[in-house]
């Protein structure tokens, strides 16, 4: 587990370290849940991240019952060529829904954040 890793495993390992720090700083006896904000375009496969987290969390008693709650953020873009704003569910980089240009600014959808953590204290 610690060796073979796609980026979701690395991200889960980093996240677990952060969660343990947060739990210690707050004198928590348990971490109940962690809320993540993941953009559709972030390139993070949420199923892989949860799979990795569920395997790693068993190594830490504070974390072993913790659940991940994911808020998926849709991709919202604005075309730099024709100014059209549009939303898309596609995972890949979007072209403008109006003029097909790839010169598109991403307003949201690249998020990869820990929003909050629920602790038992």
């Amino acid at each position, binding site marked *: 587990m610690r*060796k*073979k*890793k*796609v*980026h979701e495993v*690395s*991200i889960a390992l*980093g*996240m677990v*370290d*952060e969660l343990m720090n*947060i739990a210690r700083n*707050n004198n*928590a006896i348990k971490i*109940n849940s962690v809320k*993540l904000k993941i953009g559709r375009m972030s*390139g*993070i496969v949420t199923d892989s991240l949860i799979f990795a987290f569920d395997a790693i969390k068993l190594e830490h008693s504070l974390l072993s019952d913790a659940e991940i709650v994911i808020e998926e953020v849709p991709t919202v873009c604005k075309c730099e060529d024709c100014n059209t704003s549009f939303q898309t569910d596609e995972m*890949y*980089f979007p072209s403008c829904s109006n003029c097909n*240009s*790839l*010169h*598109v600014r991403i307003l949201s959808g690249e998020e*990869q*954040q*820990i*929003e*909050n*953590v*629920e*602790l*038992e*204290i």
Partner: protein
Amino acid sequence: MCDTCGCGNSKNTKTVDINQSLLKKNEDAAIRNRKHFDEKGLLVINLISSPGSGKTTLLEKTIEKLKESISIGVLEGDIETELDAERIRAKGVPAVQLTTGGSCHLESALIHKGFHELEKRIDGNRLDVLFIENVGNLVCPAFFDLGEHIRAVLISVPEGPDKPVKYPRAIRTSHVLVISKSDLLPYFDFNIEQFKKDALSLNPHLRIIITSAMTGEGIDEWCEILKNGLK
């Protein structure tokens, strides 16, 4: 809190707002690396590409051109083997092989360790340019800042012209796009103008260099960036 009514809600819970990047651990380490490189006056280039695009070959050609004028060090990332580091050392340049043992990308903490190892090997001598050759993969390496100053992505002609739109993150996070194996253009259906247009749409600031290690095309232009930075 509620011990009497039987709702079971007797535990004290607290929600702590974090609002930080999931990649914070690597990002913090990358900031430390970059600071360290800056203090040493070192230009650091992170080379990313699919396996077989020609990263090591580009390095060999670069070393041949620049070895006399600037001092170069290399950190070689691979899942297994010392093969690439040996190729670089054969050119007379210090190289440390970083084997990830299965991981498909390099991370900042490993770069930190590898750089100290490299410093030991050069015995206090100064380096001008450090190359980090990432693990061959166009997906995961794009997520991990290593503390580099320039990220260069290689795409070789045989891979096909659809790579920028298929791997947008690699294109969007890079400063330089090196098209490699240009000597093969006559044999492939590869519309270079469309390729450039797609890449620049994804990243308007991208510097694109067409190269061939066989004919030497573009190698001088690439070396110019290493000598004088991105202008």
